[in-house]
């Protein structure tokens, strides 16, 4: 018997691989952050940031291929775009990172010829991840400030944004999620798999910039949430939403403010002064206000 979220994340594993996970104690199952599968190696789980090997049977490359086929519901076409970005998101918002030998055309990744490793990140909702103090800084005296959260991968940016969206939405703020990677709401057959609040609208799977423009034009949100600003278009979308009077909550990959300033893409974001609040998520997941 597997813990619920882990079971969902491991749903794409062939049955014989799933049994290995069942030997993990229930407490560890509940804390499991990632499942790491590498061809020719033992499967591993990440708990508390550290990898631990499981079982005594090394993984065959074909098992990785089958895992990815199952994750994509045997429908490569449905996931072609996200696979070109190196990941697929399965039911429940669990993201699977993909590595291997690629086929490249015109300098762009076309497909994977052979899979060499997979990283299944177990998505978990942590109600209350955004504390009252943080909420008070963003929603001050009836005014919602646009806020940006900086952190390297794995520090809980998505979890924090999701919880902020949930709390603000439940307080009656019309919230919109541009959920490109299907991780914030994790829609399944149109129904969010995470609690994202009662007044939240979601566009799932569409590039953030396009989704943001549609949401601003059609749903007139008071708050727009963009997870991981990674391109010039995302910056422009945030800018545009902000000009339309919509507050923006977003996240970006950076260790701290110095690292953030060094990145050319983000310099423009600073110049535009969209974000009146900038926070950094520390290694202990503590949220430190910077601006």
């Amino acid at each position: 018997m597997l813990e619920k979220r882990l079971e969902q994340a491991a749903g794409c594993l062939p049955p014989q691989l799933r049994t290995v996970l069942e030997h993990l104690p229930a407490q560890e199952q509940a804390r499991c952050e990632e499942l790491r599968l590498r061809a020719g190696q033992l499967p591993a789980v990440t708990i508390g940031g550290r990898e631990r090997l499981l079982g005594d049977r090394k993984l065959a490359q074909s098992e990785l291929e089958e895992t990815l086929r199952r994750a994509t519901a045997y429908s490569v076409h449905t996931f072609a775009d996200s696979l070109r970005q190196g990941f697929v998101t399965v039911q429940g918002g669990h993201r699977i990172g993909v590595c291997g030998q690629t086929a490249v055309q015109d300098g762009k990744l076309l497909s994977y010829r052979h899979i060499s490793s997979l990283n299944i990140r177990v998505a978990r909702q942590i109600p209350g991840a955004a504390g009252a103090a943080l909420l008070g800084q963003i929603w001050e005296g009836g005014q919602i400030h646009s806020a940006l959260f900086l952190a390297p991968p794995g520090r809980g940016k998505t979890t924090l944004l999701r919880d902020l969206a949930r709390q603000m939405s439940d307080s009656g703020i019309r919230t919109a999620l541009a959920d490109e990677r299907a991780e914030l709401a994790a829609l399944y057959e149109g129904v969010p798999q995470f609690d994202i609040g009662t007044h939240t609208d979601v566009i799932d799977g569409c590039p953030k910039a396009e989704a943001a423009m549609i949401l601003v034009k059609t749903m007139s949100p008071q708050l727009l949430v963009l997870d991981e600003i990674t391109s010039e278009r995302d910056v422009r979308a945030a800018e545009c939403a902000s000009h339309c009077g919509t507050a923006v909550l977003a996240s970006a990959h950076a260790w701290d403010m110095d690292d953030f300033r060094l990145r050319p893409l983000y310099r423009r974001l600073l110049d535009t002064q969209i974000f009146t609040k900038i926070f950094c998520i520390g290694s202990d997941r503590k949220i430190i206000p910077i601006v």
Partner: protein
Amino acid sequence: MLKIMGIVLIIGSFTGIGISQRRQFRSHVTVLGDMLSVLDTISNELSFHLTSIPDIVKQLAGDSRPAVSQIFSAMRDSIAKDDNLSLTFKWMKAFKDCGRDAGLSEDDITILCDLSDFIGKYDAQAQQKSIDYAKVRLSRQLEIASDELKSKGTVYRTCCVAAGILLVLILI
């Protein structure tokens, strides 16, 4: 009176055999038409919604046409099973197990099974090309089946009626 009843029964049963043979030809034509329309549905779902194959199969399993529903219900049920069998295998198995009952010929089943090498494995465009090729091959099968219905269907019916009359004459 008994003779008349015997004559009616003999002619009636031979005519029935003829009509049933003709119905088989007609049903083959109908099923091929259904399969062509299934391929259209798959193609549309792939190009407009990038729908996953299990979802397309689920949709087709609920189709009102018996042949379509029979084959795709079997496929849907086998996809739902959490085993180590591939979609390729499950696709082929559904057509091989249910195709004959649904009214398809061995050649039709082979054409539809050949699709399993492409379905779900490549991007939507590549899959559509393979579906288009299968449609060309099935259309050819449909032409042959329609010709058979016109020629053999009528011949079977006429021959059976004639055989019935002949048997009655011999018996009399």
